[in-house]
């Protein structure tokens, strides 16, 4: 059996600055051994450990989508030792990726359902993966209405801006892009915080509508009541958690919430599940 | 000691009854022989749980930071010196702490007593200067003075140096001619033997950090061993990393350590980490005439510039 601690070697193929403050960069990796790409077969919502020898590892949601072949993408916020080092790396550098890890958004359950995607700030990576996956011609018919509420502090802090504006033009997805505030007079989308935009624009819940939320704790905290007001039940609210992780395979013991391990039993949980566990996230 | 326990309970009862303090921090009986456990008491009924005996080797100054409202704490001589250090370093305010001082005749060396028995000790009590210790295979009657902790046997500040009330009569201070025989013994070795001594000293260390965490002085929000940017010390069992932890931690206590012995008391591996701190205590005394925690009005030597500093590099 494979060694789950051994990363697949990858080469940095491209680095894009993702936000105007340069705190986020999107890294595109290609596998050095092409057969590793098959082993790294993933679902939208999963994460991986980016592994830099001699520096350390960091768990990051996979931003590319299973329908995009030949590479994997991760958008990384510069914060600790590993992410700072990663931000200073160059195209062509060799490192490792370990995964895919964790569970994913419940795509089987979401078939023939309306899906509302709610994201804030830089927690939009696995949501991007999900949107690309759902919009893929082979998959789009599996889902009913798709709504996306995505907000950031300012227009320049929105991730994947080009794609957002492309999606906005399509008629098979309802985009609700928002920023906390902007002086840009040409800004033609929403202004306001995500919970408020959700309340005003997200579809009311029926039993066939599910919401996926990913964002900073404060956004999640205030979005929950907005969704409840729209009639969403606990099991219709799907969330992705972040806890400190090391192994990513459910062994090192730190990321637990009750008996559930965020790295292996999660990171995706329904609010119904979370309400039965200690709030240690 | 019994009268002292009664006194402690009475004082604690009064303090809580009159709402002079919100809580009293003291010791309660442990669940195993020769053990007592720190406890916090908020209701006067619970003051019956308070005890004090020769096994109270931890330093309760470790529990006085970040407490809300006024608290009372039970403190031996060395513990009160530690409280003085806390006040000097602005970790607590004098008027937040009600000190129930306990004149102390020394704490017992549990390791030394355990070493007398092949099997586990199942019963321990003390009767004045006599310790009655029992395992399932034998009984021993011991003279407490022969089983004092090393720091207690050399202690020259048995009486609290700062207090609001004393829970007993003052005790006679010991006259110690050679206060640092252990340090001198190591100093007399050649360099390689000294190195060997410290290598052997820490070889069983498991880096549980009980010494650091039992030490009231180790209150840094992020200890240097836990810092990741930059990472000063490796986190594994590498000998150099282990030793670096010990000597740097000791150095961070230079001029502050009151030799309360809590670090050694807490160590599950019975490592005498005081071999590190005592060298610094001796240097403080020799170079600056300084003993930590005796005076609220004086700044510690490592925190003050003096034109007659004995270090040559400063000139």
């Amino acid at each position, binding site marked *: 059996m494979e060694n789950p601690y051994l990363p697949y070697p990858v080469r940095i193929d491209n680095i894009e600055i993702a936000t105007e403050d340069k705190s986020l960069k999107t890294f595109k990796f290609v596998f050095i051994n092409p057969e590793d790409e098959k082993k790294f077969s993933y679902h939208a919502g999963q994460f991986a450990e980016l592994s830099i020898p001699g520096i350390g590892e960091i768990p990051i949601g996979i931003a590319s989508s299973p329908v995009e072949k030949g590479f994997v993408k991760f958008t990384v916020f510069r914060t600790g030792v590993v992410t700072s080092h990663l931000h200073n790396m160059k195209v062509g550098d060799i490192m490792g990726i370990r995964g895919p890890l964790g569970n994913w958004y419940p795509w089987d359950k979401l078939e023939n359902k309306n899906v509302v995607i709610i994201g804030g700030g830089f927690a939009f990576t696995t949501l991007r993966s999900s949107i690309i996956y759902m919009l893929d011609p082979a998959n789009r018919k599996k889902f009913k209405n798709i709504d996306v509420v995505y907000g950031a502090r300012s227009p320049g802090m929105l991730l994947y801006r080009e794609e957002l504006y492309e999606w906005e033009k399509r008629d098979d997805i309802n985009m609700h892009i928002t920023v906390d505030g902007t002086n840009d007079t040409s800004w033609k989308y929403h202004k306001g915080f995500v919970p408020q935009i959700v309340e005003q624009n997200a579809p009311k819940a029926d039993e066939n509508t599910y919401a996926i939320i990913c964002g900073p704790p404060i956004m999640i905290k205030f979005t929950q009541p907005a969704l409840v007001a729209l009639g969403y039940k606990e099991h219709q609210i799907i969330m992705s958690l972040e806890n400190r992780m090391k192994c990513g395979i459910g062994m090192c013991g730190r990321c637990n919430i009750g008996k559930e391990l965020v790295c292996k039993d999660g990171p995706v949980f329904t609010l119904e599940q979370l309400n039965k566990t200690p709030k240690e996230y | 000691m019994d009268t002292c326990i009664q006194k402690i309970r009475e004082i604690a009862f009064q303090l809580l009854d009159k709402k002079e303090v919100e809580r009293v921090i003291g010791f309660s009986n442990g669940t195993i022989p020769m053990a007592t456990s720190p406890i916090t008491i908020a209701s006067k009924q619970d003051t019956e749980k308070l005890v004090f005996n020769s096994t109270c080797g931890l330093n309760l100054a470790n529990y006085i930071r970040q407490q809300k409202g006024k608290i009372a704490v039970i403190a031996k001589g060395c513990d009160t010196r530690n409280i003085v250090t806390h006040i000097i370093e602005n970790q607590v305010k004098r008027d937040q702490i009600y000190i129930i001082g306990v004149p102390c005749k020394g704490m017992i060396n549990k390791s030394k007593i355990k070493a007398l028995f092949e099997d586990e000790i199942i019963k321990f009590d003390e009767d004045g200067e006599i310790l009655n210790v029992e395992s399932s295979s034998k009984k021993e009657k011991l003279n407490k003075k022969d089983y004092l902790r090393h720091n207690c046997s050399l202690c020259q500040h048995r009486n609290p140096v700062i207090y609001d009330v004393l829970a007993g009569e003052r005790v006679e201070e010991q006259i110690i001619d050679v206060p640092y025989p252990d*340090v001198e013994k*190591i*100093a007399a070795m050649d*360099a*390689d*033997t*000294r*190195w*060997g*001594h*410290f290598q052997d000293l820490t070889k069983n260390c498991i880096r549980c950090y009980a010494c650091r965490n039992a030490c009231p002085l180790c209150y840094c929000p992020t200890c240097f061993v836990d810092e990741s940017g930059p990472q000063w010390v*490796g986190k594994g069992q*590498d*000998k*150099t*990393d282990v*030793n*670096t932890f010990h*000597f740097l931690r*000791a*150095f961070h206590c*230079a001029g502050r350590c009151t030799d309360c012995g809590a670090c050694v008391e807490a160590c599950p591996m019975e490592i005498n980490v005081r071999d*590190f701190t005592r*060298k*610094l205590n001796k*240097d403080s005394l020799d170079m600056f005439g300084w003993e930590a925690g005796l005076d609220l009005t004086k700044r510690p030597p490592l925190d003050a510039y003096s034109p007659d500093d004995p*270090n040559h*590099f*400063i*000139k």
Partner: protein
Amino acid sequence: MGNLLEHMGIERDRINFSWISSAEATKFVEVVKEISNKVRALGPNKKLVKDYN
């Protein structure tokens, strides 16, 4: 610090503390020369060296 390291068996000449102002270039050079000579005389350090691998 120097005393403690020496007490632990590290050679005293490996440790040096100096107070040099940024204007004292000559003193800096002197001190560094002096230390390097002392350390060269001692040879490679064997204590408190991390063994990687």
